[in-house]
């Protein structure tokens, strides 16, 4: 087990370093891309261009630039923005993190609860009308573009109905939990729901098919033969087995969302999280910020990937043989 954990850890480090190099190359070494030209603005004369290039260290060899950037990002943590000179990137990311965590954790709670309800109900009522209806609803939920659903939600809650039915919805934006917990909650209810919709559909469907598959296995037949109640078979036997798939999928999606995949929801609802930070730095091509947010995101994804694998290895000793 220890050997597996170590080798998994090594591959995690490898993937993380590869991603950092890849991101760096995308921004600094793609043929035809010149960060200095972007910073200096259109039609800058060659002298200005050279000055900009020198002051940002862009005239050094690529490997040196890469190492300096990584050192500034992880060791000294004083990487500064190209656009707002002097503004440090790391504190900016740390300030955006609670917003993204608030959004993603709340949505995850919603989607786990409702997906389990949906999957279990459909599997338990298999062959009756409720099953295909729930599955069709799930398919519709995962086909709706989430950012569009967010826009429509805004249209409904922020427009004419805002003065009556939806008077409780605060204007778009984010209130920190420490400042006003009630406003924090009210402001996030709709983003949570909109973000969770697609995942409820997806996870409900995945859970149902995994439950149905588990039901055809011998241990469930044994449980039935022992005379256990259907409820007990479902909750104690089938659901527990099916949760393995569910949890490993969940780990990956949760990581991706923490890492900025909730970007569209943050943009639509005006939440200043990691995704919004990336989006804003996109508009003015602020490379250090984009680089840092992408690496921050990759860190979560790689870490949770490794945790999911370890979780698997704990449950199933066969996986440990690498």
């Amino acid at each position: 087990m220890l050997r597996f954990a170590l080798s998994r850890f090594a591959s995690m480090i490898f993937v993380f370093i590869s991603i950092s190099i890849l991101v760096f190359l995308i921004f600094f070494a793609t043929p035809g891309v010149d960060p200095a030209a972007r910073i200096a603005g259109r039609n800058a004369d060659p002298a200005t261009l050279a000055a900009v290039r020198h002051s940002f260290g862009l005239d050094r060899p690529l490997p040196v630039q890469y190492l300096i950037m990584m050192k500034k990002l992880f060791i000294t943590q004083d990487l500064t923005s190209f656009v707002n000179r002097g503004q440090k990137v790391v504190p900016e990311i740390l300030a955006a993190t609670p917003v993204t965590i608030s959004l993603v954790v709340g949505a995850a709670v919603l989607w786990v609860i409702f997906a389990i309800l949906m999957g279990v109900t459909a599997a338990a009522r298999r062959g009756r009308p409720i099953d295909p209806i729930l599955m069709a609803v799930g398919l519709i939920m995962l086909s709706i573009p989430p950012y569009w659903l967010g826009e429509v939600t805004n249209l409904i809650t922020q427009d004419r109905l805002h003065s009556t039915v939806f008077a409780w919805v605060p204007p778009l934006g984010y209130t920190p939990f420490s400042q006003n917990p009630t406003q924090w909650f009210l402001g996030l209810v709709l983003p949570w729901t909109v973000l969770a919709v697609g995942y409820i559909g997806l996870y409900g469907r995945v859970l149902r098919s995994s439950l149905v598959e588990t039901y055809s296995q011998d241990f469930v037949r044994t449980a039935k033969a022992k005379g256990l109640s259907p409820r007990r078979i479902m909750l104690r036997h089938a659901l527990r087995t099916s949760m393995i798939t569910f949890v490993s999928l969940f780990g990956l999606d949760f990581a991706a969302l923490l890492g900025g995949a909730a970007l569209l929801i943050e943009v639509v609802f005006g939440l200043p999280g990691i995704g919004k930070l990336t989006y804003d730095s996109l508009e003015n091509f602020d490379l250090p910020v984009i680089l840092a947010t992408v690496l921050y995101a990759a860190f979560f994804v790689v870490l949770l990937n490794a945790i999911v694998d370890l979780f698997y290895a704990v449950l199933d000793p066969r996986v440990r043989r690498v």
Partner: protein
Amino acid sequence: MGEVATLPPDGEQGGPVAADLVRGGAAGGGGAPPPPVPSPWRLAGHDLVRNKSAMASFAVLVLIVLACLAAPLYASHIAHTDPFTSNIEGTTVVNGQTVKLIQQSTQGLGLGSLPIGPTWDPGHYFLGADVQGRDVMARILYGGRNTIFIGLTSAVLICFFATIIGLVAGFFGGWIDYVISRVLDVLWAFPVYLFAISLSVVLLTSGFAIGPVHIGAGSLAVPILIITVIFIAYVARPVRGEVLTLREREFVQAGIGVGASDWRLIRRDILPNVLTTVIVFIPLMAAIAMLTESALSFLSIGVQPPNASWGTIINDGQSLLYSRPAVAIVPGVLIAVTALCLNLLGDGVRDALDPSARLRGGA
């Protein structure tokens, strides 16, 4: 992603051909006498045709595609406008009266201008105009062409390259597999949207040139390239896994035993069995690719103006959300309906190609 069980190996009857599926299984194997058992492709074709929800979705998809293909006809013969040039000073006829396309705003706080809303008259701005006085309906039809084209092309490219990568990695193993698997690990771990954003920022500012291939900055090939790269690992990993198991199966071992060449083993024994997995992925990846394209375009890093896509139209509609909601709502509904149909079709294809999944699913 659903794991798809393999069909029984088709061994010496002559490999099934993908085209059979498209033609509903018109042709059998390659042998002279008709085989006693119909080919798996033919069976799958029959199953798919009998699947009502899959066929209904297919019909809706065909309708949407035909409507979008007819966009130039709609623009020139019905709407009589050019949806790509702004027409701020233009006028149109509503209930027999001539009105300006962009009117002074009477709603809200701003003193800004407001384009006309839906007239429900196909000849005169059916769904109204956008801020530049362009016919929204015509733009939606043109946008659908791009959205669907990008979705389908990306899906086909993803599955094509993923099959090759998965076959090579799984079949040859050793260091080739090691290198490919590590690359796929990296692509897999990359947060999809952030990767897409990084690529689009770079590609959209500068275009892209490798040797003779040059992709212009505003070209539709940019989103296609981005979507293909970010989703390849999602298909290549399951394909590789399946090749690994197939390689250990008796009929492949027997092929190795009688001295069949690698090429023959891949083409006759492995590929036909992997194809079912890949074909199941195509409609599902098309739905995912379409949703991704529209999201990127919504962030204005996908399809670039003057081209339109359903995502860019939703983006245009953002500023008109509270006054002219139709501009943002209609393309979103179209995206959802198209993605839903692709998903339903994908389910149907999966059930047809993998009867055991249907037994498990109890549909």
